[in-house]
């Protein structure tokens, strides 16, 4: 572009206005806590666009700038949707495990996760900065590709859909392994369609593009199947079950849904297990989609679709990626995960008094999908069996908590794995823990399992003593914020004339801080936090949460309501307050509190084991601090009736 202009023309005005809007979006992104190099890179990108806009002198120059802006804008919009402080970064260990299983070295890649509130679908952009035009590329090249994963907010409420991440990991795999793909493709396309080129090159070009897209989807499904086994097939079928599209025909970019339904339905039926329970669950998953049978019978693939599908199959075979989900493996992961789910615990590890056995994110996703969608919990889950709430609410609470527990276990996997590799491997002699509370992890009373569990286990030797267990600071915080309301009212709605009905949510803001990062607690600030560990208190003990004296000396107060009831399950909410005069950086994952176990003064009754679930407690199995639920107290109705 030409560089010398005397008076800015209309082209310059247009150029600056479109560039300035992108720069203002970049400034918004920089307010969020992205890795520093991404912020720097985007800042530099804004500067380069500004320089380019200065050089625009005619209409074609504007067209060039606009085409670059189109790309940059798409890129910036991706980042704008992400919010690391409240996002889906819980999925990071799952993505890393998928990479590992595919043979992708994730230590050489940056992963950014976008918690999308606008998209209902998962998505991925592999090596996103690699697509930048040469003249907008960084002068300081980053040698690490950045992969952006888009996770819809619906994933928070849908256990099955988590398995679809396997498909997205497939897109990254094929971006890296494109040479293998190219070789086979060129051979097969030439063989099948080469001769027809001269007569209808236009049609052939369209066909080629269309089939190229279709093959990619089949290939990524195959990867998803390797990563997540039956959970992937179930998730895909579930996704298509509600699809309003015509499932018989293909789009420009996707093969007919019935082709993929066919593959997933057949694949789901092909899984078997040495365990009778797992086999029955697999059968029930298939039964959900019996309605597809008739559609599949009348579905005839056309020659191009068949070619794409078969070519994808042969290319996938050449990768050597095999599914680990055979009879034995499915039974193994089922045994380790279901024991945790039945006990209403996040599936971090197999809890015994022996050395803990870690559960990986993919194992947790597969087993939890089977457990929930085959309705296995109905006769086994401790909450579901013992709660006194009505059927529909019981089902809803279980669904919500299973989802939260699964996401929580996935989110902490990297930290737990690293800790266990260091402190719980061969170096851990559980006999040395015999004089601590550790053996209570496997304990029975009156013929019933009645353990004291603190999970995940990260460093038992330093955490466990004879009467207490040290607890770590968790990743979720609820901060007080200012609102337009005059005051905070704990009262339920419509029971009182003044102030009632003010939503408590208006006074709290959620914040997620990854393990190893600091949360800065300012002088006299009050925040709700939670312990990183999930606690199961036996029904014949209660517990006290106490601060550690070292933190107390720095001015940190960790709890005002310190009693944890017998039978409690969940992460314990901490009411943090900085009583000192200087800000306190609190590193998430540090030991911050201790839990002392005390025997209950009265002998538990025979049905004490159901006590916690049957009490209609307001806080059942939380994994993060929750806003006060004092409005649920029955006393309000009585007291308000007296005041009237």
């Amino acid at each position: 572009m030409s560089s010398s202009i005397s008076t800015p023309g209309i082209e310059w005005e247009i150029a600056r206005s479109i560039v300035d809007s992108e720069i203002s979006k970049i400034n918004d992104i920089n307010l969020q806590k992205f890795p520093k190099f991404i912020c720097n890179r985007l800042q530099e990108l804004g500067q380069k666009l500004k320089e380019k806009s200065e050089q625009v002198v005619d209409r074609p120059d504007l067209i060039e700038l606009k085409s670059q802006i189109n790309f940059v804008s798409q890129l910036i919009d991706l980042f704008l949707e992400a919010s690391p402080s409240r996002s889906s970064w819980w999925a990071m260990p799952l993505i890393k495990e998928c990479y590992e299983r595919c043979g992708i070295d994730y230590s050489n890649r940056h992963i950014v996760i976008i918690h999308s509130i606008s998209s209902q679908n998962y998505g991925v952009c592999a090596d996103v900065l690699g697509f930048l035009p040469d003249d907008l590329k960084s002068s300081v090249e980053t040698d690490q590709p950045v992969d952006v994963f888009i996770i819809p907010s619906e994933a928070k409420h849908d256990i099955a859909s988590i398995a679809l991440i396997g498909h997205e990991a497939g897109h990254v795999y094929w971006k890296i392994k494109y040479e293998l793909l190219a070789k086979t493709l060129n051979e097969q396309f030439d063989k099948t369609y080469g001769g027809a080129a001269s007569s209808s090159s236009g049609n052939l070009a369209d066909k080629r593009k269309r089939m190229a897209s279709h093959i990619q989807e089949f290939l990524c499904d195959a990867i998803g199947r390797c990563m997540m086994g039956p959970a992937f097939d179930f998730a895909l079928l579930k996704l298509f079950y509600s699809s309003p599209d015509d499932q018989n025909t293909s789009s420009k970019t996707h093969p007919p849904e019935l082709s993929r339904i066919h593959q997933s339905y057949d694949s789901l039926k092909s899984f078997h297990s040495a365990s009778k329970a797992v086999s029955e669950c697999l059968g029930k998953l298939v039964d959900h989609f019996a309605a597809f049978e008739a559609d599949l019978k009348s579905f005839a693939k056309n020659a191009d679709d068949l070619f794409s599908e078969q070519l994808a199959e042969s290319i996938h075979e050449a990768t050597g990626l095999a599914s680990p989900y055979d009879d034995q493996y499915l039974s193994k992961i089922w045994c380790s995960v279901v024991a945790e789910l039945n006990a209403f615990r996040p599936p971090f590890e197999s809890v015994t008094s022996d050395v803990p056995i870690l559960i990986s994110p993919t194992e947790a996703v597969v087993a939890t999908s089977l457990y929930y969608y085959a309705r296995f919990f109905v006769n086994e889950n401790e909450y579901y069996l013992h709660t006194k709430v009505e059927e529909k609410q019981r089902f809803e609470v279980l669904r919500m908590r299973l989802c939260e527990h699964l996401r929580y276990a996935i989110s902490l996997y990297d930290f737990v794995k690293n800790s266990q590799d260091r402190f719980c491997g061969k170096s851990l002699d559980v006999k040395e823990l015999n004089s601590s509370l550790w053996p209570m992890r496997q304990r029975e009373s009156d013929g019933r399992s009645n353990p004291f569990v603190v999970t995940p286990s990260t460093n038992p030797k330093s955490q466990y003593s004879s009467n207490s267990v040290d607890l770590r600071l968790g990743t979720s915080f609820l901060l007080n914020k200012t609102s337009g309301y005059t005051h905070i009212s704990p009262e339920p709605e419509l029971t009182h004339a003044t102030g009632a009905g003010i939503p408590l949510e208006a006074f709290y803001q959620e914040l997620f801080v990854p393990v190893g990062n600091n949360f800065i607690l300012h002088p006299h600030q009050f925040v709700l936090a939670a312990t990183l560990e999930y606690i199961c208190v036996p029904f014949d003990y209660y517990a006290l949460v106490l601060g550690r004296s070292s933190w107390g000396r720095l001015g940190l107060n960790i709890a005002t309501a310190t009693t944890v009831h017998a039978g409690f399950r969940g992460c314990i909410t901490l009411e943090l307050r900085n009583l000192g005069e200087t800000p306190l950086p609190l590193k998430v994952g540090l030991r911050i509190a201790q839990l002392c176990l005390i025997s209950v003064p009265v002998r538990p009754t025979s049905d004490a084991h159901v006590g916690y679930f049957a009490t209609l407690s307001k806080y059942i199995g939380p994994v993060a601090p929750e806003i006060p639920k004092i409005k649920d107290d029955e006393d309000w109705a009585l007291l308000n009736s007296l005041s009237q």
Partner: protein
Amino acid sequence: MSHMSLLETHARYSVAISILNRLRHALIGRAHAVRREDKEILLESLEITESEKLLGKMVLYSFHGFGSHRQAAALELSDGVQKVLESFADKRTEYLNALKKAIEFEVQTLGEDEKSLATELVTRVMYVIDSQEDVSNPDTLIPRDL
């Protein structure tokens, strides 16, 4: 269309348009010569345009997200040139010859008529490629990744 496809589509169009604009600058005397790397991609795009059979590269470039999006811009350039030439079938040979000469030889060796024809073709192709970034296409607005 996946997010990756959408992003790469924009990237390919952007590369193609930038290459054409740099060629245009050389043709109207704002730049001295066409870059060697631009020449390679432009020649490749002409090869695809005139090819009588399916080229391996065409197949590969049809896949979004694989390989070099810069190289793959040759496919978008070829599509753009093809579309312009279809609309101006009577001037097809003159346009193509002028463009080839502009790419293969120094721009200074072209006659004024040839420069004018090549510039016109390049500008038209830029507009055609730009017009393909049509946001009214529902596939573009709602990327489908699964």
